[in-house]
Every structure is written in structure tokens, then in C-alpha cells.
């Protein structure tokens, strides 16, 4: 469960988030909607511990996430293992030399036994249709293929929370369809899923809860309790 | 300025590589401390950037071009330690994968381009520019710094070349590696670098620096903080002074060994090959064939001939195939 309490965030003295108070519950799928520049990506950065609110509190499973605590490597590792984050731009997210290394990367960090790593890598390569691409360099793949690799790399770590920043942006129609179907299939796994999107159709199809933000960098719908 | 293999003796290369080890160690430690976050991707991206910078030809008034190394620029933007490591990584990949600069000469190339160049360039830049940023004084500092940096590197390369014929000769007095003494190598290297290449480096450094300063002023404060510490200045001084001396010392030792060796092999050497029509020895009479049966030479020449024939025919076939493909299209 993620709790946000009165979060403000300024980037170089320009407001990016204002008074965000919201609770995300496990097992539900949230769609974050709103115009460009309303702060969706910033919110994701805060939720992933990549930026820290200027004011307010962020609690994950009841534990406060602060800059100071994340400086502790063990804490940071446990924290990041709980959240899978698929970047809007897969290009920066994929940094290994081939697809199978990309998927295995996080598993090596988690220190899983060798057999378990093999099993999981093969599972996600098959699940995401990556078998023909497994020796390719992620950078050279098409947009849709990159998105699939990024999803596989994140999901292989089996995080209870999954965040997707504009998962359909830059994909062609088939690619969009495939990714949308795939995310829909994840809904039954009991994960907390947060998706930011401009795509109405996707939001209607997937969301259990619609969260709308406005140009004043606030959450307007549903109203905060 | 990329020195290929076999221009320098392996001994020289060994000494230069050994000289680089403490520099790398200090740089890695510095980077670990100053750039904790993002250090690995930053190193990678800086190395790729310096790789790219070395490929850009900068146009020079008068219609010619010269290529810049960009070490001073990277030192100004990311600090001299980051510049040292990233240029080293770029040089390693160039040597290993792109065939630019030798593998054995890697240490020497790093010494010139990853150590002398950025540190001299950066020290001069700091001396002139001080804390100034985004003004004429900074750009003048960057210009002079990069000019002196590349020339200091070229001078080092010239000295490395120039001492080869003094130290490494065979029995007949022929140089084994670079044959030109300091009297040839220094003017040959320096004329180009004092003029075209130096100018290219200056234009390149100042132009890119000005662009970055104007386009992203917020980067400037953070990146300009790195200082050349006193211990490193001393280390730099000692290394620059001591390396040629060390080379001479190591070189004479090796040179003596070479003379003994030559004396030993000289006795067993007979230019038999000449009379047999197999004329490696005619071509290269300083090489001894002692201990090898002559049939080995025939096998070798046959093998080379056969391989070359296959290669030529394959290439002809390939070219023909390509042409027919394009004519069909």
C-alpha cells in the first residue's frame, strides 16, 4: 500500500506537484490521467525514490521513504525490489549488451540461485515473445520490442508494485494492442499497478480507479478523502 | 596521435603502461569520491563522447581539417580524473575493437592522450580562468589550455618515438622500431600539432565549451568544482620528468641484452637462402634462420600464396555478385 500525504514538489523553484494526498491499494489498477506537464512523471519519480518531495510524506507499506533512509544501500535495494518501474523512454532503461542479460540483470542483483535465474529468464523470454531477439542489443530493437524487453526485465524481478509511465507512447497500433493485452493479463496477479497514460481507450479498459490531475499539479478526481 | 604497435618497442610500452597504473588508481579513487551517483553510466557516456569527439574533423581556415582529441574539453566539463578514465576507456576500445592505436602501445597512448593531455590542459585552464565562467577569460584559458595540452601530448609521443633508435637496434645497426631520432621525430610531430592540430583542438574546445555553457548554465557550477590536488600535481611533475629517465634506464638494460643476443645469433647466421631462391634472407638479411629447417620457409610461402589466392578469388566473386545484384535492381 502506498500512502502520500500532502506532497509538494518544486523543480528549480517551479512547482511540479501540489498537495498530493492519496492512497494506492494493493491489487488494484490505477490510471493516472492529465495534460502534459501536470506532474505525472514527477509523481512516478517520487514514488520510485528518484526524487524527494519538498514537503509531505511518502509511506510504502507503512514505512516512510526519505532521502536519508535510501542512502542506506540495503534499505534502498529492498525498496527498489518492491517496485517495478517501466520508464516512458525504454532507450535509457535498457543498458545491457543483449536481451537475455537485460532480463537477468535484476535477478543477479537480487542474488537468486543460478537455477532460479535461468528458469525465470526463460519464462519471461517466452512470455514476452523475446526468443528470436534474445541475442540482440536492446538499443537496436524497435520501439515495441524495446518496451517488451523493459517489461520483461522489470517483471522478472517479480515486484508487488508495477508502475508504467506512458506504456503506449511511440508504439504502432499492433504494438499498442499487444502491450495493452499484456497489461490486462497482469491484472489478475494481485499486483498494484499504476499506469500513466493519455490514451482514453486504455484507461477505460484497464483502470479500476481513474486518477485525474490538472494543470495546477493536483489530483482532482477522485476527490481525496 | 594514436601510436600503432611496433612503432615503439614492447619494453617502452611496458614502462609507459606501468607509469599509467598509479594515475589510473588515483583517478578511480577520485571518481569514487566525487561522483558517487551516476558514476558508471557517466564514465561510459564520457568515454563514448571522447570517442566521438576524436572522430569529428574540425574545419580550419584554408580548407584543411584536423582532428581534435578533446581531452581538455572533457577535463573542463567533467574534471581531469574523469577525463583520464574516459579517454583511457575510449582508447582501449579503439585499440581492441576498431584497430586504432596499438594494443601494446595502449599504455603509451594513454600516457600521452589520457594523462598528459587532459591534466596539462586542465592545469593551464585553471591557472588562467581561475573561478571565471562563461566569460572571455574562461574561453581564453580553455583555448590556451587545450593548445598546450595537445602539444605536450604530442611532445611526449615524439620523445617516445625519438628514443627508439637510440635504444633498439639490431646487429647491422638498423633500428628495430621507429627509426627516427629525436632530431627528426620532434619536428615531425610538433610542426603539425603546433599549427593545424593545435588550432583544431582550440577551436573545438572553445566552441563546444561556449555552447555548453550557454545552453545549460546549470551544469557549469557542478562540473567545474573538481580541483587538481597538490599531491597529483607533484605526481604529475615527477612522472613527466621521470618517465623518459626510466625509459632510458630500462632501455639500456634491454639494449645490452639485445647486443648479447645479437652476438650470439650472429655466429650461427648464414645467408643460405639466397642461393636457394628462397629469399626472405635476401630481403631481410638481419634475421637469423638458425634452428629452423628450410622446408619450413617453403611451407610458409606456399601457405601465404594459397591463402592470398583464395582471398583474391573470393573478393572477385563477391564484387561480381554485388554488381549483378545492383544491375538487376
Amino acid at each position: 500500500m502506498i500512502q502520500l500525504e500532502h506532497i509538494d514538489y518544486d523543480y528549480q523553484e517551479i512547482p511540479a506537484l501540489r498537495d498530493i494526498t492519496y492512497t494506492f491499494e494493493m491489487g488494484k489498477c490505477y490510471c493516472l490521467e492529465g495534460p502534459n506537464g501536470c506532474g505525472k512523471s514527477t509523481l512516478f519519480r517520487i514514488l520510485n525514490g528518484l526524487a524527494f518531495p519538498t514537503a509531505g510524506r511518502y509511506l510504502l507499506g507503512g514505512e516512510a521513504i526519505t532521502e536519508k533512509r535510501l542512502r542506506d544501500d540495503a534499505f534502498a535495494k529492498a525498496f527498489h525490489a518492491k517496485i517495478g518501474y517501466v520508464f516512458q523512454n525504454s532507450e535509457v532503461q535498457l543498458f545491457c549488451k543483449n536481451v537475455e542479460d537485460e532480463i537477468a540483470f535484476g535477478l543477479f542483483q537480487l542474488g537468486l540461485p543460478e537455477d532460479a535465474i535461468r528458469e525465470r529468464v526463460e519464462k519471461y523470454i517466452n512470455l514476452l515473445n523475446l526468443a528470436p531477439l534474445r541475442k540482440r542489443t536492446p538499443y537496436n530493437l524497435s520501439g515495441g520490442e524495446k518496451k517488451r524487453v523493459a517489461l520483461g526485465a522489470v517483471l522478472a524481478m517479480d515486484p508487488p508494485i508495477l508502475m508504467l509511465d506512458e506504456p503506449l507512447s511511440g508504439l504502432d497500433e499492433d504494438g499498442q494492442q499487444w502491450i495493452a493485452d499484456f497489461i490486462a493479463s497482469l491484472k489478475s496477479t494481485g499486483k498494484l499497478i499504476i499506469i500513466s497514460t493519455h490514451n482514453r481507450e486504455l484507461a477505460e479498459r484497464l483502470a479500476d480507479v481513474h486518477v485525474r490531475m490538472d494543470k495546477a499539479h493536483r489530483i482532482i478526481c477522485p476527490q481525496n478523502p | 596521435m594514436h601510436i600503432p604497435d611496433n612503432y615503439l618497442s614492447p619494453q617502452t610500452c611496458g614502462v609507459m603502461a606501468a607509469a599509467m597504473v598509479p594515475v589510473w588508481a588515483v583517478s578511480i579513487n577520485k571518481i569514487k569520491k566525487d561522483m558517487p551517483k551516476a558514476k558508471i553510466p557517466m564514465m561510459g557516456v564520457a568515454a563514448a563522447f571522447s570517442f566521438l569527439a576524436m572522430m569529428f574533423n574540425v574545419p580550419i581556415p584554408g580548407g584543411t581539417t584536423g582532428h581534435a582529441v578533446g581531452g581538455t574539453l572533457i577535463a573542463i566539463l567533467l574534471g581531469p580524473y574523469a577525463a583520464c578514465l574516459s579517454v583511457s576507456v575510449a582508447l582501449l576500445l579503439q585499440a581492441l575493437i576498431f584497430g586504432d592505436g596499438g594494443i601494446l602501445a595502449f599504455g603509451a597512448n594513454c600516457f600521452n592522450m589520457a594523462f598528459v593531455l587532459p591534466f596539462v590542459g586542465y592545469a593551464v585552464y585553471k591557472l588562467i580562468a581561475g573561478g571565471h565562467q562563461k566569460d572571455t577569460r574562461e574561453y581564453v584559458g580553455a583555448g590556451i589550455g587545450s593548445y598546450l595540452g595537445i602539444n605536450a601530448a604530442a611532445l611526449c609521443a615524439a620523445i617516445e618515438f625519438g628514443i627508439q633508435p637510440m635504444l633498439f637496434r639490431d646487429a647491422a645497426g638498423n633500428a628495430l622500431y621507429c627509426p627516427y631520432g629525436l632530431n627528426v621525430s620532434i619536428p615531425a610531430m610538433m610542426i603539425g600539432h603546433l599549427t593545424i592540430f593545435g588550432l583544431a583542438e582550440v577551436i573545438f574546445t572553445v566552441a563546444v565549451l561556449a555552447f555548453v555553457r550557454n545552453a545549460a548554465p546549470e551544469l557549469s557550477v557542478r562540473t567545474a568544482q573538481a580541483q587538481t590536488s597538490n599531491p597529483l600535481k607533484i605526481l604529475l611533475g615527477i612522472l613527466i620528468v621521470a618517465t623518459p629517465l626510466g625509459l632510458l634506464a630500462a632501455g639500456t638494460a634491454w639494449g645490452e641484452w639485445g647486443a648479447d643476443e645479437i652476438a650470439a645469433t650472429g655466429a650461427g647466421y648464414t645467408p643460405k637462402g639466397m642461393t636457394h631462391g628462397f629469399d626472405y634472407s635476401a630481403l631481410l638479411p638481419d634475421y637469423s634462420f638458425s634452428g629452423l629447417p628450410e622446408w619450413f620457409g617453403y611451407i610458409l610461402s606456399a601457405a601465404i600464396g594459397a591463402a592470398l589466392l583464395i582471398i583474391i578469388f573470393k573478393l572477385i566473386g563477391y564484387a561480381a555478385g554485388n554488381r549483378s545484384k545492383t544491375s538487376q535492381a
Partner: protein
Amino acid sequence: MRLNLKIMEVTGRLLKSDRENAGRKSSPVAPALRVGAAVLCILLCALSRNAVFVIAVIAVELFRLALMPPASILRVMKALILPVMFTALIMLPAVFLGHPRTMLTVTMKVLESVLVLAVMNESLDWREVTAAFSVAKGMAVFVLILDMTMRFLMILGDYSDKLLEAVMLRSVGKTNWKNAKVDGILGTTFLKSRQMAEATSEAMACRCFDGQYRSYHSHRFTWRDALFLGVYATMIALFVMTK
């Protein structure tokens, strides 16, 4: 005249090698052994004072080259031409300065070292070459930096190429490439590279990076590797014999 020709060539080569090597089986012999053999070979040649050794190496490498597909041969030949011609030219005056044979020996050895590396790079993927360094303990981060450099080289090469193209398209009529804003292209590339480095470090943090970097496809020591050690032995034996 396009000043980014060389960049295009390098990125193009990397992209192409990626596509061509995607279906290829990985090297049966540990890449580290093969890279080591190439380095040893170059070192021994540099040390050798006997033409037979160098010529023997050239013969073997030429034979290996002859067995390769023509496209590979062409690439290796291209890689050879410039350094060999250049060396011959540079060494030419030495003939008149009292070192008549230096030109031949140095040119031949330059040919040999470039040939050895070029042939190695045709038969090994660059990923295998960088992975060769991971045999030494504690080198994981170093290999990661090497791989990261190659990746950024592709990305930034592509990026600066596109920027340059945009500049060309905007300049109407005769493209005066001398004014094609090298500063802007490289400056923008630098800014882009900083952003990318930061984003990548965040992505690594999000996937719990703590210094581990291993290859999923790990090479186990096999009889082929043991056999390959024979190559080392042969080289050293020949070196000693021809000494």
C-alpha cells in the same frame, strides 16, 4: 564531404554486427582465451627479431581470413590498407637515413598486428571481446563501463548523425559544411549524454544495482578450451625456436 562519415561508419558497423551476429552461436572457445592469444601473438611478434615468426603468424592469419565469407575479408582488408600504407610511407625516408631494413620489418609487423586484431574482431562479437575482461575478479564494473561505452557510442553516434542531417537539411542550396556548427552538434550531444547517463543510473538503481554485472550466457571450461591452450604452446614454441 561529410564530416560525420566516420561516425556513420562506426555506428553502422556496430548495428550491422548486431544484426549479423544475432543468430550466430557464441564462440566455442572462451573469448578470454582468444583475446589473450591475440595479445600474446602481437607481443611475441613485437619482441621477435626473426622474420620467420612474423611471417608464420601472417600466414596462419591469412589462412583463417581466407576461410571467412567475402564480406568479412573485405572489411579486414579495408582495415589493413590505411595503417600499412601509412607506415610504409612514414618509414620510407629511413631507408635513406641508414636504416634500410627498418621499413620492411616495421611495416610487416604493423601488418601483422592489425591483421591479428581485425581477424579476431571478425570472428568474435564485440560483446565477447569486452566480456573477456570479466575473467579477472573484480572487473565486473570495468566490463560494465566498456559495454556502456559501446552502447552510448551507438546512441550518441546515431544522435549526432541525426543532428548533422538536420543541419544539412536546413541549409538551403550549397551546403557549407564548414559552418555546420560542430560546436552545436557536439555540445548538444554532450548535454544529451549527461541526461542519458543520469537516466541510466536511475534505471540501474530501480533494478537494485549493487555492483553485480555478469553475463547470462556463462562459458564453462571445456575440452575445446584445453585444446585451444595448444595454440599458446605452439606460439611460444615457435617463438623460442626462431629466436
